[in-house]
C-alpha cells in the first residue's frame, strides 16, 4: 500500500511546555492507525499540526509525498485530509446541509444551490450508510447523529485520510460499535484513518497499527496482535496499570439515600425523570447505567438540590432534604462529583487551594469570623495535593492550568476530604486518562469501604459493571431494572438501556 501521510520530526511547544517532541510516523492507504496516549500526551496537538490548525515549530509533513506548508488548513483539506473533531465543528442553528457544504458550497452563479447541496448530502449519506435528514437543524439532533454529520462533512470533500479525534467520548456502547464498523468500512474503501483515543478496548478492536505517545514523544509502535490491553496501558502510562478494579466484598448496611417517587423536568420543560424510586445503602456502590440523556443528569441534579423536584422526596439517612438548596443537601452529608466539572465542580479562575475548600470556605478552620484563614487553607491544600497526587507546580496555581484528570482529582479531593454519608459521582472518569481513572476508581471503592453509600452514574458500561455492587438501568426517565452486578451480562444491560427488554 502506498504511503499517504508522512510526519517527520515534528516538534511543537506552547510556552515552556513541549507538546510534541520530535515525532515521526506514517499512515498508508487503507490503514487504521491509532494514536494512543494519556490526556496531555500530545495527541491532539499532533493531529492539529497535520491538519494545519497548529503551526509546528520544527519538522515536516508530507501528504502523497508533497510537503505541506505549516498552518495551511485549506491546502491540507484540498489534498484530501478530513477531520472529525472531538468537539463537533458544527453550527447549531444551521441545517445539516449548510454545515456539510460550508467552505465548499455548490453554486449557481452567485447563489448557493441548496437543492444540489441537499442532493449531494443524500448521495453521500447513502454511499456510506450514514443516515441523516439533510434539512434538520443540528441543535435538534442527538449527539450520535451530530457525529454522523461531522463524518459526512469530512467525507464530502473526497477524503483519502480521515482523522478522528476521540470519536467515542460521547457515544453509547451501541453507537461505538456502529462507528467502529463505519471506520473499518472506510479503510476497506482505501481511506487512511487516524484515530486518537485513550480507550484500549477500541484500539484492540479497530487498529491495524498503534502509535503510543507519552509526554509528547513516541514511546512505541505496535499492533493489536503483538500486545494486549495491559501491554498498551503499560506503554501509555510508563508503568504497569491495574485495569481490572480490585475490590473486596461489599458490606452494605442501612439505607443512607432514599429516593421516593421522584419526578423532574429538564431544561426544555419536558418530564425527564418519571417517578424514580431507589435506595442506596451504606457500604455499597449503586450504579446507574443508561444511554446519556435518559434522565440521569436531571435525577442527580434533583437529588443534590440543584434542580426543582416536581414530585417525590429525597431522604438522607431517613431525614428529608430541602429542595433547591444544594448547600443544605451538602450539609446533610451528601458529597457530589458533578458531571460537568468545569461548570459545577470548579471555578477555573480560582487557585487550586481555594477550589479545595469551595464548599467549606465559611466554616472553621478555613474561616475565622468574617475572615479567611489563609494558613489553614494552604495547609489543607498542601495535604490534599499530596494525598490525591494532584500534578501541579504549586497549590497557588489556577485550576485552569490543570489537565482534565488533575482537575477531576481536585474535585474528588474536596468532596472526599470531609465527613460524608452519601457520595454521588456523575461521570467521574469522563475525559480522564488511564492512570487517573485507576486512582479515581480506588477512591470510590475506599469511600464505600469507609461506610459511605455511593451512587455512581456513568455512560461507560464497563465502569458501571466493574465498580458497582448493584446496577440500576435507566431508560426514558425510569429505572427499568435493578440487577446484581455479579455475573451481569453486558449485552442484556445494553438491551435494557436501549429500552428493548422489559
Amino acid at each position, binding site marked *: 500500500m502506498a504511503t499517504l501521510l508522512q510526519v517527520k520530526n515534528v516538534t511543537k511547544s506552547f510556552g515552556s511546555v513541549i507538546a510534541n517532541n520530535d515525532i515521526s510516523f506514517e499512515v498508508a492507504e487503507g490503514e487504521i492507525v491509532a494514536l494512543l496516549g494519556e490526556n496531555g500526551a500530545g495527541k491532539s496537538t499532533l493531529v492539529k499540526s497535520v491538519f494545519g*490548525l*497548529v503551526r509546528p515549530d520544527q519538522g515536516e509533513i508530507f501528504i502523497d509525498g508533497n510537503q505541506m506548508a505549516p498552518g495551511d488548513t485549506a491546502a491540507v483539506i484540498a489534498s484530501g485530509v478530513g477531520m472529525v473533531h472531538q468537539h463537533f*465543528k458544527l453550527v*447549531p442553528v444551521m441545517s445539516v446541509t449548510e454545515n456539510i457544504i*460550508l*467552505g465548499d458550497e455548490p453554486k449557481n*452563479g*452567485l447563489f*448557493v444551490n441548496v437543492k444540489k447541496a441537499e442532493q449531494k448530502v443524500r448521495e453521500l449519506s447513502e454511499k456510506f450508510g450514514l443516515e441523516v435528514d439533510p434539512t434538520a437543524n443540528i441543535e435538534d439532533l442527538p449527539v450520535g447523529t451530530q457525529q454522523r454529520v461531522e463524518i459526512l*462533512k469530512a467525507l464530502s470533500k473526497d477524503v483519502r485520510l480521515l482523522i478522528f479525534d476521540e470519536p467515542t467520548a460521547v457515544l453509547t456502547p451501541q453507537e461505538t460499535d456502529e462507528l467502529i464498523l463505519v471506520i473499518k468500512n472506510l479503510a476497506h474503501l482505501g481511506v487512511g484513518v487516524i484515530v486518537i483515543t485513550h480507550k484500549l478496548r477500541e484500539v484492540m478492536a479497530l487498529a491495524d497499527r498503534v502509535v503510543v505517545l507519552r509526554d509528547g514523544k513516541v514511546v512505541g509502535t505496535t499492533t493489536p496482535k503483538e500486545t494486549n490491553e495491559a501491554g498498551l496501558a503499560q506503554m501509555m502510562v510508563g508503568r504497569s496499570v491495574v485495569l481490572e478494579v480490585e475490590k473486596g466484598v461489599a458490606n452494605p448496611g442501612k439505607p443512607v439515600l432514599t429516593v421516593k417517587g421522584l419526578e423532574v423536568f429538564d431544561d426544555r420543560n419536558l418530564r425527564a425523570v418519571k417517578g424514580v424510586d431507589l435506595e442506596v445503602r451504606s457500604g455499597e456502590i449503586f450504579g446507574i447505567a443508561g444511554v446519556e440523556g435518559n434522565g440521569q443528569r436531571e435525577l442527580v441534579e434533583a437529588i443534590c438540590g440543584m434542580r426543582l423536584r416536581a414530585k417525590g422526596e429525597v431522604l438522607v439517612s431517613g431525614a428529608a432534604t430541602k429542595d433547591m438548596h444544594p448547600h443544605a443537601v451538602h450539609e446533610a452529608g451528601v458529597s457530589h462529583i458533578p458531571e460537568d466539572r468545569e461548570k459545577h465542580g470548579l471555578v477555573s479562575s480560582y487557585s487550586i487551594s481555594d477550589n479545595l475548600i469551595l464548599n467549606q470556605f465559611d466554616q472553621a478552620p478555613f474561616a475565622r469570623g468574617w475572615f479567611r484563614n489563609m494558613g489553614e487553607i494552604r495547609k489543607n491544600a498542601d495535604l490534599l495535593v499530596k494525598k490525591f497526587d494532584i500534578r501541579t507546580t504549586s497549590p497557588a496555581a489556577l485550576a485552569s492550568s490543570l489537565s482534565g484528570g488533575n482537575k477531576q482529582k481536585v474535585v474528588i479531593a474536596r468532596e472526599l476530604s470531609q465527613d460524608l454519608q452519601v457520595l454521588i459521582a456523575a461521570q467521574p472518569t469522563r475525559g480522564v486518562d488511564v492512570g487517573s481513572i485507576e486512582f479515581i476508581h480506588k477512591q470510590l471503592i475506599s469511600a464505600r469501604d469507609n461506610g459511605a453509600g455511593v451512587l455512581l452514574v456513568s455512560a461507560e458500561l464497563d465502569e458501571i459493571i466493574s465498580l458497582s455492587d448493584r446496577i440500576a438501568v435507566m431508560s426514558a426517565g425510569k429505572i427499568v431494572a435493578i440487577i446484581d452486578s455479579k455475573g451481569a451480562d453486558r449485552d442484556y444491560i445494553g438491551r435494557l438501556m436501549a429500552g428493548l427488554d422489559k
Partner: protein
Amino acid sequence: MLRLQAVGAVINMMTTALRSRKSLYFYIVVIAIAFAYSVNSVSTVAVAASSITFGLPLAMAAMVGIMCERTGVVNIGIEGTLLTSAFFGFFVAALSQNLIWGLLAAIASGAVTGLLLALLTVSWKMDQIIAGTIVNILATGLTSFFYKQGYSLPAIFPRWSIPGLSDIPFLGRVFFQSGPITYFGLILIFVLYVAMYHTAWGLRTRAIGEYPSSAETSGISVKKFKYINVVIAGAFGGLTGAYLTLELVGSFDRGFSAGKGFTALAIMIFGRWNPIGALLAAIFFGFAQALANQLMIDGLVAIPGPFINMLPYVLTIVVLAFSAGKVRGPAAAGQPYEREQA
C-alpha cells in the same frame, strides 16, 4: 440569469411573508393607511414619506451592526463611523464644491473607521466594547477639534422622480421621489438580505458569527472574513453619514449624528439581525417620529418640542427592555477568536 434569481428570491421572500401569520399586521397597516389617507391625504403622505426619511439612516446604520455581528464583531462604534463620515462628507464636498467627492470621502472615511475596529478587535483581540468606544471617542474628538464654522455645500443631492412610478398615488410620493442615496441604500439593504441568506459569503459569514472554528476547520480564513466584512460595513456606515449631511440636512455640526448609531443597534436587535427585519423596525422608528412631528405641526396635540425629540431614545429603551433576553443574536459575537485553540 443572476438578476432573475435575485428578483425571484425577493418575490419568494415577499410572498411567503404575505402568507405568514405576521402578515396580519401588514394588512392592518395597509387598512389603517388607506383610512388615514381617505380622511387627510396630505398629512398621511407627509407622515409616510417622513417615516422613510427618518427611518432610512437608522436602517442603513443597523446594516453596519448586522454585518459586523454576523461575523462575530460587536460594533458599538457605528456612532463614530456616522460622525466621521458625515464630517468628511461635508467638508470635502464644501471645499471641493462637489457632492460626488464628498460622497466618496464619506464612504472612504467610514471604511477607515471599520479598518480601525477590525485592527483593534481581530488582530489585537481587544475587548470589542472598548474598541467600539475608542472609535466613538476618537470620532467625537477629531471632528470637534477640526470643525470650522462658515462652510457650506453647493447644494444637496436632488430628488429623483422615477418616471411613471412617481405618479402612483401615495406610493409614488412616499417611495419614488427620493434622493439617489435613498434608492441606493434601499437596494443595498435588499442585496444584503439576499447575500446573507442565499450566497456562500452569507453562509460563511453566519457560520463565523455563530461558531468560528466550524469555519476555520472548513478551510475558511476567519481573520480575513472578519476584516473584509467589518471594512465593508464601515463603508456602508460611510454611505449613511453621506446621506445625513449630503442628502437629508445639508450641513454639519458638532455631535451631528446625535445617537443614531446607538439607536441603530436597538433596531438591529429589534429586527433580529435580519436586514429586512431591521429595515421594517427602522421604518417603525421613523414612523413614530414622523407621526409626532405631524401631530405637532397640525396642532392636534400640544406636546412640547423636546418631548418629540426624545421619542427615538425613549423607543430605544422600550424596545431593548422588552426584547432583552428573548432574542438570540449570533452566538460568537463579542468573543475574540484564537486560532491556536481551534
